[in-house]
């Protein structure tokens, strides 16, 4: 049932990558429990604007949990405490009247703060550029049914392919590692026959690029799996490790 609650927000404010940040306190009043977390921030921002203050900058776009552009750390948890949920799909019915909520940007060496809660995640694009594709030009592909793909293989590939590239795995990892992100793409393509020819080169290049960009190593903390809004499994990391070692042995 719809009801309204009052909240205290402690929000990270930072003017730019080189500036020092700070927590500011705001009061969010008469928040409907049917609102999403981002709609709650909209209401706060509207009030800030009317009061002549600068609204809180935060990234968002599709607001249906698929584009991967939104994401903040809410009370210490990327995308908040609900399992398998992006911030835009986190609803206020999971909060209680009188709660205090701390809201911070995703923090990692490879992610610079742009402003307030918005961060630069272009490093994730660079990892994909290092090999997260099948090298096939447009045109000339054979008939789509020419190569059979067992259903269970297609399903496993799809499980990995669901990654939305939000960076919550990096933000949740004590080492700020991007292993879950990288392994999801490596797995998807290594599982499918179309991606197999480049599997070894892909694993090596993507991992190397990840290291160069300042992401940390994986030390099996499993925080990434717990916080991933698409519930991508760390078995993908095991699969990446296998591809990586295989590549080392046979190259």
């Amino acid at each position: 049932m719809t009801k309204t609650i009052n909240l205290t927000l402690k929000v990270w404010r930072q003017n730019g990558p080189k500036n020092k940040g700070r927590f500011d306190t705001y009061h969010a009043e008469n928040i409907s429990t049917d609102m999403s977390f981002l709609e709650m921030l909209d209401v706060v921002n509207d009030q800030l604007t009317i009061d002549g203050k600068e609204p809180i900058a935060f990234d968002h776009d599709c607001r249906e949990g698929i584009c991967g552009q939104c994401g903040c750390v809410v009370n210490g948890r990327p995308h908040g405490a609900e399992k398998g949920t992006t911030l835009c799909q986190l609803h206020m019915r999971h909060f209680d009247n009188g709660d205090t909520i701390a809201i911070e940007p995703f923090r990692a060496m490879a992610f610079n703060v742009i402003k307030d809660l918005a961060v630069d995640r272009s490093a994730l694009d660079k990892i994909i550029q290092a090999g997260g594709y099948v090298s096939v030009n447009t045109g000339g592909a054979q008939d789509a049914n020419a190569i059979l793909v067992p259903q269970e293989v297609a399903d496993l590939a799809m499980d990995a392919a669901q990654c939305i590239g939000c960076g919550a795995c990096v933000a949740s990892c004590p080492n700020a590692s991007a292993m879950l992100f990288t392994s999801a793409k490596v797995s998807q393509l290594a599982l499918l026959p179309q991606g197999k020819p480049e599997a070894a080169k892909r694993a090596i290049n993507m991992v190397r690029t990840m290291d160069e960009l300042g992401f940390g190593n994986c030390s099996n903390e499993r925080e990434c799996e717990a916080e991933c809004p698409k519930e991508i499994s760390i078995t993908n990391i095991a699969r990446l490790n296998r591809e990586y070692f295989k590549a080392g042995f046979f190259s």
Partner: protein
Amino acid sequence: MALDAKIPGGPIAEKWDRHRFELKLVNPANKRKFNVIVVGTGLAGGSASATLAELGYNVKTFCIQDSPRRAHSIAAQGGINAAKNYPNDGDSIWRLFYDTVKGGDFRAREANVYRLAQVSNDIIDQCVAQGIPFARDYGGLLDNRSFGGAQVSRTFYARGQTGQQLLLGAYSALMRQVAAGKVQMFPRREMLDVVLVDGHAKGIVVRNMINGAVERHAADAVVLCTGGYGNVFFLSTNAMASNVTAAFRAYKKGAFFANPCFTQIHPTCIPVHGTFQSKLTLMSESLRNDGRVWVPKNPGDKRTPEQIPEADRDYYLENKYPSFGNLVPRDVASRNAKEQCDMGKGVGETGQAVYLDFADAIHRDGRDVIAKKYGNLFQMYEKITADDPYQTPMMIYPAIHYTMGGLWVDYNLMSNVPGLFVLGEANFSDHGANRLGASALMQGLADGYFVLPYTIGGYLAGTAKADVTTGHKAFDESEKQVTGRIDRLMSIDGKRTVDDFHKTLGRIMWEYCGMARNNEGLGMARGMIQELRAEFWENVRVPGNAADFNQSLERAGRVADFLEFGELMIVDALARQESCGGHFNERFETEEHEALRDDDNFCHAAAWEHSGDGREPEFHKEPLVFENVKLTQRSYK
């Protein structure tokens, strides 16, 4: 100005082959001498950028998101059509072509639609080769399902995330070309003007959304893949940043805007539940494969769905349209939902909803089978509404989803401005007055992978190369105009927020230019929009400053354009004195309340030319000639 669609001659099945032969080519060594700008990285922009770069062109690609992977094509759920006929159920290129022309209520250009159906099969081949994990059956072959307006299963899908997987395929091809140095990627840029030199599109002016810098980029051709304008209604299934600005700026520079009043209302969305709501969420049309739509038979029946026995339920789509049942096209399903709610049979707290019930399907196939097909959609529904669709029917209501109108283009996908190409949802050509489900993904990828890469060569090879730099005075003028507008927005310092204006505009558009329209309402709405626009420029408040990451300023620019564009939609809706597809004027309906076309007077695309601020736009007509299908009253009974 005469509108020449440049449709090749000959039988429809041979037009595209013939045209590809007749098009001039740019030889492989010369391609690297040409620079092409692509704006937008959805299915159309992503696929076009990657393919042009593979061919050897130098590509500069721009997007407003922080990464090209986030364009709103990613949110398409259900699937992509192709005429593969893998299920052996009688599909063919001709049938896909016919279904699409009929589904669009005979207001699309025949030759374009036929080409779309022809290349649909190549798209599936290409996407599989890229490693897209489409759904497979037990033998490892690709699986298909059905969508509205078709009686065959021709829709390929990747769970409920088909758009995501196709977009990530195009994105990965794009990233490969970035790594190869053939594409230069500019994320977090918003296009604010197109620059013309001697009448040809030669560049764009963009705002860097991180630091507010206004930047100039020159090229030999400009390709707009900037999506639709559904957010003119404020509440829609579009992403928050989806806008009309790029297309509208091109319109102001002389590109014609075609059929702006053709908007699609999607029948299965989660109903509106509060004034704070920022967007609407679609529940895929694929759900209508297994879900049954119903309302209580008696108006005002307040019992819970479980308490209403079969005898007191009205499965109105199945009863009214026995051959297509729950899978009638979107415009028909939407209007019928509205009709039921108008009769007082709507359900839920607001009475603005109907049920979509899976109980029979779960009983028939088991919960596991249904979960496998729609699991993520059911989960999304539960997250938003806190209701479990495995236990109780979903509640759905129509919402703005897609816009068939867009910049006018010829058969080459070039607008009337030479060198300015428009792809995907941003153009007008393929869906007529109503788009069938799973056809948007098909069109975006057809345009980007298989049409533009040929036709742009024809333009570049057939036009004298003029090397324009960003120092050209046309860039000076354009930048001056862009900066002037930004400064003006920042200096108003009024009392109402940008969103407040946007919401008011959205309510006007939904009320008077939404699912049903009438001449009196449209006339009234036009005045209301003019007043609102005047107030906007006096009373909007844009906080912060322009040389900064300023999301209020971004939105202010977009809403300013929507406030002008909304009026153009109304002008178009008033000029089209008939009903067709998604454009339903209450004066023109059949006895069975279906859209009543007037083929004698309105069998054309209406293309509007900007003729100066405050002046009536000038009307141009492209007559639609149907040589291969017979115009009939659409019937899905």
